[in-house]
């Protein structure tokens, strides 16, 4: 599935929830169902700067594709980074680097995904783009 298709799927899913509280509950579920994050990866090298809580994003390259492991000490941020990691995992670095970073603003996730360029979601996306760009070059 392409990045665009995954974004469209999540968009449809999130549209099912009528308000911010239910959307956050969906993210919390994503967080609770996410894979365990290896303790040894919880290090500064993988920390995403600019988030209000601690967020870790670990890229792994397998068969020319990128995969992301993620975690956060806050539940809603963990749900969000889990969702972002799943959108960009199993994709070629070049495809990620060329994808539109604004795609997720269509998610209507209220304050956690506002277009403000200083929020945590933007920092997560920027980290993913930077890693991909380096590998694609």
């Amino acid at each position, binding site marked *: 599935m392409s990045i665009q298709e995954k974004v469209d799927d999540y968009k449809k899913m999130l549209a099912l929830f009528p*308000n911010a509280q239910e959307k956050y509950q969906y993210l*919390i579920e994503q967080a609770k169902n996410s894979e365990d994050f290896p303790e040894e990866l919880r290090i500064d090298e993988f920390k995403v700067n600019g988030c209000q*809580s601690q967020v870790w994003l670990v890229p792994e390259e397998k068969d020319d594709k990128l995969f992301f492991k993620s975690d956060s000490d806050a539940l*809603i941020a963990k749900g969000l980074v889990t969702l972002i990691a799943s959108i960009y995992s199993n994709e070629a670095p070049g495809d990620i680097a060329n994808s539109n970073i604004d795609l997720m603003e269509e998610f209507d996730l209220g304050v956690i995904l506002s277009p403000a360029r200083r929020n945590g979601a933007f920092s997560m996306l920027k980290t993913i783009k930077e890693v991909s760009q380096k590998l694609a070059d």
Partner: protein
Amino acid sequence: MIKVSDLKKDFPIFDREINGNRLTYLDSGATSQKPNLVINEMSNVYTNINANVHRGTYVLSSETTAKYEDVRNKFKEFINAYSSDEIIFTKGCTEGFNFLANSICKDLSPGDEIILSEIEHHANIIPWQMAADKYNLKIKYINITESFDLDIDHFESLLNSKTKVVSIVGESNMSGMLPDIKKLNSLIKEKTDAIYIVDGAQLVPHRKIDVQDLGIDFICVSGHKMLGPTGIGVVWGRKKLLEKLDPVYGGGDMIEEVFYESATWAPIPHKFEAGTPPYVEAIGLGAAVDYLTKLDMKNVEKHSDELRIYAKNKLESIDGLNVVHTSSDIAGCTFAMSVEGVHATDVSLMLDTFGVAVRAGHHCVQPFHRKLNLDATFRATGYIYNDEEDFDILSNAIKESIKLLT
């Protein structure tokens, strides 16, 4: 007495709905909402009289200058300063501390000591750290007790002949602690010749202040936390001390005579106000002072005290909620809170879905959060437009949020 339901009508923002709920604004510690009086007064300046201050020889400039300078008189009355020349306009408390730290520390000797407390806002730490680095000064921190109050014995033990500056919060933006300023002042004056500066960011919006009675030397004030606009604040200082201090910023409007080689400074207060000042914001602050004066600061204080007691009981009865709040009988209506195993940002995001606005993070008091082993807390602060219903809504929303997050 303050009747919140009537008073709220003066604040147009309370007509807003947030996520389908009425707005429960409990973040006045970060910034206060603005009454129509302030909004309209600033709009009036831009609409009818706008011109740069102190420069023009025409009607508009003279009217704006008169209004701007009159705010000094209003503020002088508001805090009972000796003279309106002692009212220095700044961008806010942060600029106030940077100005004082730079100007005062320049004249100190290496090894001289500055005393702060462990619960200071970063604005009252970083400028001193920067100045201490530059001039080889030493900073000492007064311990905060387990009940979130100043450890007075420890404070006394820190005072000595090298102490040149004591700068302490007047009302804590984290624990609500209200140090006994008069008592601290007597201890300082008894044992040292140090300058005593009060961080008035949270204190001045909430309590009647009389700088002459307190006996202090300086107070830094933030305009936007006391119903005024952003970008304006005040440093009040004793005239004799202000006259001795050098300006930190140079430029237009702060000089008497300028030569190619040198310049002489204008008298206080203008020597500290280089360039075009934020005069519209200052006039807005004047309207905020008018509003609070009409309410009467004694009523503001009483309202804060009554609301605090109600809120404290309400919040402390919530299972699983850790409330960081002084055990003193008198304190500010400020409550930093945490829930074991739940991140503060999760709670504040959930509270937002109930229309409740609180702040999450370290509230610019990171060293003290570290001392308590807390990454972050969420904080509710009450002001004149908050009532018991706001804390009922907060309390129910916290309970619901804990359920959703655990």
